[in-house]
């Protein structure tokens, strides 16, 4: 499974990652962070194609993306 890691406390809930993900992997979160924002979560990570659009839209550099190279391509 690919991985999307969002640094929990760095997020300011702009929701660009949620909005621009082509696979709707990310959804708004329900846990509040140190800055007072609800950090999105990759709730549908199974759909992630590791395009890193979320990371490249993030104004805070809070997102890292990793591709599962062992995953068998169907």
């Amino acid at each position: 499974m690919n991985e999307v890691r969002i640094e929990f406390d760095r997020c300011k809930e702009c929701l660009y990652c949620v909005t621009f993900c082509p696979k709707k992997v990310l959804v708004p979160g329900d846990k509040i962070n140190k800055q007072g924002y609800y950090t999105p979560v990759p709730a549908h990570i199974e759909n992630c194609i590791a395009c890193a659009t979320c990371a490249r839209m993030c104004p805070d550099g809070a997102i890292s993306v990793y591709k599962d190279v062992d995953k068998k391509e169907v």
Partner: protein
Amino acid sequence: MKTIYERPKALQDTFFKYCGGCGHGIINRIIGELIDEKKCLDDTVMVWPIGCSVYADQYFHADAICALHGRAPAVGTGLKRAEPDKLIIVYQGDGDMVSEGMAEIIHAAIRGEKFSVIFMNNAIYGMTGGQMAPTTLEGQRTTTSPFGRAIENSGYPVNMAEIMAKFPGCVYSERVAVNTPANVAAAKRAINKAFDLQLAGKGLSFVEVLSPCPTGWGLKPVMAQQWVAEKMMPIYPLGVFKNPEVAK
């Protein structure tokens, strides 16, 4: 696991003080990516303006100087003339460049100073609480144009990328945006081109970025990005206004 994307190493661990959704954050991050890719951190000197990015020296590992309001192109001129081999990045907002520093940026272009300029256009003065900028749109409400910018009183918004293109000393001028993934990718390509031109010893390279200001505009970030597309782009069209002739 293969790393597809990680936070640029050129960036410090510091949290950006920018508002959520701010265009500064996206472009700062892109600059960090480019410094990593070009492996030029040691020889990069960043010239920061007065504006929301005034503390950006805290966000990067590179040498930095914060200039007075409008003076970044003059400070950049002194730096680049003294140390021509450094990558000098002059970064300004619309108050800094188009108002206070109009003489400095124009004359840097006239002289063809060999540094790269990144101009963040968000049609407002963000840091000081949302006053009108020379780039504010007709009818746009700000704290100093509460009834909407009136052309009669305040004139028309200013198109810097087109103006800069007129000067022979400016070898490259492009306007980009960061409101969609495709535009963010194009913005990175443009800034990369600007840095490459400087490293090749060419004249002044200029990239104008249409940047959302959610707080100043009173819009949530995603809506602010829509406002960029709907309202700003008709006045500030994206595109290349001066094509560099890069000798490969």
